[in-house]
C-alpha cells in the first residue's frame, strides 16, 4: 500500500512539474509592439497626390465645435469617465491599436485573406461551384481569396485608406483642433503625445474606410469588422487621443471615401474574371491552333482555370493598353528543345530535393489557406515599416504603393498566363512531383516571380538601404517555384523582370506624389 502511495505521489508531482514548466503559448511577432511614435507627423500630407479622389476635400467635413463649447466639454468628460475605470481589456485594446492602425487593419485583412483562401470543394457531378457575392454565406463562401483576388483586395483597401488619410490630414491642418489631452490636463495621454490635430480622428477614418470596403471584398465579415471598428474607435477615445466628435467625423469621411473605391471596384472587370465555359474552351482551342500544347488542370476532377479574365481588370498604376505592352514575348514552344531542357531541369530539382530547397519552397509557398504571395510581401513590408516609425498617412501611402504594384503585377501576370496558356512542368512530364501544391492556372509567367519582382522594386525605393535584401528575397521566392517543381526557369526569370517593370510605375508615382 505504501508503495502505491509513493508512486501516485511521484506521478502527480512529475506531471505537475511538466505541466507548469511547459507554457506553450505563442506570441506573434507583432503582438507586443510599443505604441507608434512617428518621427515625422507629415503635417502637409493633406496636399499629397490622391489616387481616386479628385481633391482632398471632395467630401466635406464640417468645422468642429470649439474646444470651449459645452458639447466638447461633455466629450472630454466621456474620456475621463473611461479613463477612471479602465479595465485590463480596454488597456489591451489601446495597446493593440496604438502600435499602428494601418498596420493592424493590414493584419486583419491578411487574416481574412488566409481565412477565405480555400478552393471550393467539388459538386457530386465533378463540376465546381463558384462563390457568389450575391449569396456570400452559402457554401462555397464568398470570396475564394486566391492570389489575384487577394492582390486586388489589398490594393483597393490600401489605396482607399491612403486617400481617406490624405483627406483626413487635409482637414486636420485646416481645422487644427487640439488633442483632448492638450485642451484639458485632466485627460491622460495613454499614447505618445503628438502635435497632429485630432479632428477628424485618423483612427476613425481608417476604421470607417476599411469597414466600408469590406462590403465589396469580404461581405461575410461586415458584422465582425463593425465590432473591430467600434473597438478601434473606442480605444482612440479611451486613450485620450480623440473625442467622440473627432471619431464621428472621421468614420463618416472614411466611409465616404470608400464609396469611390467601391464604385471603381464594381466596374473594374474583376466581377467577370471567372469567365465561363465558352471562355475556358476558347483558351484551349486558340492554343492548339497556335501549335502549342494547351494548359490543362492537374486537379481531379479538372477545375476550370483560376480567373482567366483577371488580366483584363483595370490597373491602378497604368491603363489597359500598358498591360498589353508590359506582357512579355512567348514562352519556349512546348514542342521545342528548350522546353525539353527546362522540363528536365525541373525534374532534376525535384528528383531528390535537398532539405534547404524544401525549406525555401515552403517558406514562399503561400498556397491554400495562407495570405497569398501578395500578403507575404505585405508582412515583409509591415515588419520593416514598423522599424521606420512612419506616420499613419505615410504607412498608408507606402502600403498603397506596394499593393497597387502587386495588383497590377497580378493583372499583367494573369494577362500573360492566359495569353499563352502554357502547360505546367508536371503536365509535360508527369514524373515531376511537386514540393507544394500546383496552382490551378497556366505556368508562364510565374505569379510568385511577378509579384515578388514588383514588390522588391517598390520596397527598394521606399527603404533604399534594404533594396538588396528585397531583391535577394524576390530572387529566392522566384527560384522556390523552380526547385519546388511548379515552374520552369523561364517562367521565373521573365516573371521577375515583368514584375520589376510594374514596380517602376509605382516608383514613378512615388516620386511625384508629394510625400518625399
Amino acid at each position, binding site marked *: 500500500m505504501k508503495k502505491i502511495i509513493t508512486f501516485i505521489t511521484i506521478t502527480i508531482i512529475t506531471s505537475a512539474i511538466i505541466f507548469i514548466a511547459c507554457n506553450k503559448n505563442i506570441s506573434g511577432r507583432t503582438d507586443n509592439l510599443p505604441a507608434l511614435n512617428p518621427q515625422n507627423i507629415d503635417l502637409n500630407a493633406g496636399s499629397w497626390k490622391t489616387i481616386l479622389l479628385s481633391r482632398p476635400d471632395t467630401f466635406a467635413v464640417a468645422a468642429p465645435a470649439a474646444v470651449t463649447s459645452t458639447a466638447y466639454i461633455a466629450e472630454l468628460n466621456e474620456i475621463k469617465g473611461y479613463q477612471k475605470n479602465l479595465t485590463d481589456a480596454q488597456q489591451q485594446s489601446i495597446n493593440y491599436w496604438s502600435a499602428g492602425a494601418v498596420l493592424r487593419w493590414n493584419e486583419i485583412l491578411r487574416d481574412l485573406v488566409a481565412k477565405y483562401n480555400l478552393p471550393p470543394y467539388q459538386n457530386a457531378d465533378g463540376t465546381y461551384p463558384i462563390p457568389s457575392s450575391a449569396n456570400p454565406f452559402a457554401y462555397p463562401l464568398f470570396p475564394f481569396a486566391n492570389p489575384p483576388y487577394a492582390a486586388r483586395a489589398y490594393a483597393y483597401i490600401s489605396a482607399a485608406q491612403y486617400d481617406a488619410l490624405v483627406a483626413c490630414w487635409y482637414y486636420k491642418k485646416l481645422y487644427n483642433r487640439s488633442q483632448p489631452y492638450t485642451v484639458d490636463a485632466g485627460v491622460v495621454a495613454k499614447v505618445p503625445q503628438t502635435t497632429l490635430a485630432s479632428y477628424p480622428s485618423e483612427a476613425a477614418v481608417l476604421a470607417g474606410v476599411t469597414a466600408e470596403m469590406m462590403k465589396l471584398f469580404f461581405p461575410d465579415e461586415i458584422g465582425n469588422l463593425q465590432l473591430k471598428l467600434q473597438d478601434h474607435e473606442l480605444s482612440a477615445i479611451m486613450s485620450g487621443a480623440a473625442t467622440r466628435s473627432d471619431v464621428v467625423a472621421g468614420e463618416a469621411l472614411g466611409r465616404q471615401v470608400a464609396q469611390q473605391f467601391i464604385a471603381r471596384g464594381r466596374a473594374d472587370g474583376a466581377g467577370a474574371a471567372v469567365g465561363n465555359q465558352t471562355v475556358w474552351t476558347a483558351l484551349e482551342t486558340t492554343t492548339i491552333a497556335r501549335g502549342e500544347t494547351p494548359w490543362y488542370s492537374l486537379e481531379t476532377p479538372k477545375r476550370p482555370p483560376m480567373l482567366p479574365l483577371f488580366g483584363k481588370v483595370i490597373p491602378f498604376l497604368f491603363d489597359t493598353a500598358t498591360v498589353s505592352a508590359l506582357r512579355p514575348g512567348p514562352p519556349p514552344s512546348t514542342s521545342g528543345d528548350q522546353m525539353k531542357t527546362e522540363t528536365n531541369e525541373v525534374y532534376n530539382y525535384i528528383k531528390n530535393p535537398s532539405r534547404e530547397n524544401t525549406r525555401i519552397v515552403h*517558406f514562399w509557398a503561400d498556397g491554400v489557406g495562407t495570405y497569398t504571395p501578395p500578403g507575404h510581401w505585405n508582412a515583409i513590408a509591415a515588419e520593416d515599416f514598423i522599424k521606420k516609425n512612419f506616420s499613419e498617412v505615410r504607412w498608408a501611402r507606402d502600403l498603397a504603393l506596394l499593393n497597387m504594384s502587386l495588383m497590377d503585377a497580378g493583372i499583367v501576370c494573369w494577362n500573360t498566363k492566359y495569353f499563352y496558356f502554357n502547360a505546367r512542368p508536371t503536365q509535360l512530364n508527369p514524373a515531376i512531383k511537386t514540393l507544394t501544391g500546383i496552382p490551378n492556372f497556366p505556368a508562364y509567367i510565374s505569379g510568385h516571380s511577378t509579384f515578388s519582382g514588383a514588390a522588391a522594386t517598390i520596397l527598394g525605393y521606399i527603404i533604399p538601404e534594404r533594396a538588396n535584401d528585397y531583391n535577394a528575397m524576390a530572387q529566392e521566392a522566384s527560384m522556390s517555384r523552380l526547385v519546388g517543381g511548379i515552374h520552369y526557369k523561364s517562367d521565373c526569370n521573365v516573371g521577375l523582370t515583368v514584375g520589376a517593370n510594374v514596380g517602376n510605375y509605382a516608383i514613378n508615382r512615388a516620386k511625384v506624389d508629394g510625400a518625399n
Partner: protein
Amino acid sequence: MHTTYKLIRLIIISAIVLNIANKSWAQTDQDAIMMSKNNFCSGLMYGHSSWNNYWEGTFKRDNQNLGTVSTSMISVMGNYGINRRLNIIFGLPWVQTKATAGTLHGMKGIQDLSMWVKWMPIEKNFKKGIISLYVLGGASLPTSNYVADFLPLSIGLHSKTISGRIILDYQLGSFFATGSATYNYRSNVTIDRTSYYTTTLILSNEVQMPDVMNENFRIGYRSSYLIAEAVVSNMTTLTGFDIRKNDMPFLSNKMEATTAGVNFKYTLKKISGLAITGGANYTVAGRNVGQATNLNIGAFYVMDFSPKKKDKK
C-alpha cells in the same frame, strides 16, 4: 508466475500508423510484458499504413488529388531488462510516405527516437489470477530535420514529447486483459513558414502543439510460445482545430482516432529466442486523420547477457 515472465521474452509491436495522427511505433511500451534481467531483445519491424478516406473535421471524404496515401516504415527496436521489474525500451523508425494520385512529392527520412522506462511496481495474486501494474515514462526526440509541415505526406510532426503511462494487466491462466492510459506532452514545433492560419492568422513560425491522450484496451491469449490479442485504441488531442472544407491538414489539428485490430507474437520453438510478430488494425472512427489500415510484421531476437550464462553463448 515468475517463470511465466521469464519465458515470455518478447516484444509485441504494432504500428499505429495514422499517418496524419500521432505516430507511435513501438508497442512494447504498450503491453504488460517485461524482459528478464540482463535480457536484451531487439529486432526490426516493417509497418505499412494506407488510407483513401479521411476526415475534415467530422466530414468524411476521399481526395482524388491524393488517391491512396501510404506510409511505409522500418523500425529498429530494443528492450533491455535491467531487472524483471524495470525495463528500458527504445525505437527508431525510418519512414517513407507517398500518394498514388495528384502531384505532391512523397517524403522520407529517419523520424523520432523514442525511449521508455518501464517499471512494474506491483504484481499480486488476485482472485485466481495475477494483477500487475506498470508505470512508464517516455520521451521522443526528432533525429533529423525532417519536414513536419507537409501533411498528409510529412513523415512526422517533429515535436519532442514526454509521456506518462499507466498499464493495468490481469492474467487468468492463459487469458489476459490489459488496459492502459497515456498522457503525451508535445513540445511546440518550428516550421519553415513565418505565418499560418488555424482559426486565426498567427504571425510566427512556432506552432503550439496540442497534448494527446491515448487509451487502449486489449484482451487475448498469452502463453509461452503464442500471444494473440484483440486491441481497441483511442487517440485524442486535447485541443486543436478542425481542417476546414478543402483545406490542407495541419500539425495542430484536433486529431482523434479509434482503431480496432489484432496482434500476434509467435516464439519459435526450434530457434531459441527468435520471435515473429504481426498485427493489423483499422481506423473505425476519426477526426482530422486518415482512415488508415495498418499492417505490420517483425522479427525479434532475445539475447541473454546474464553473467552466469556467458559460457553458453
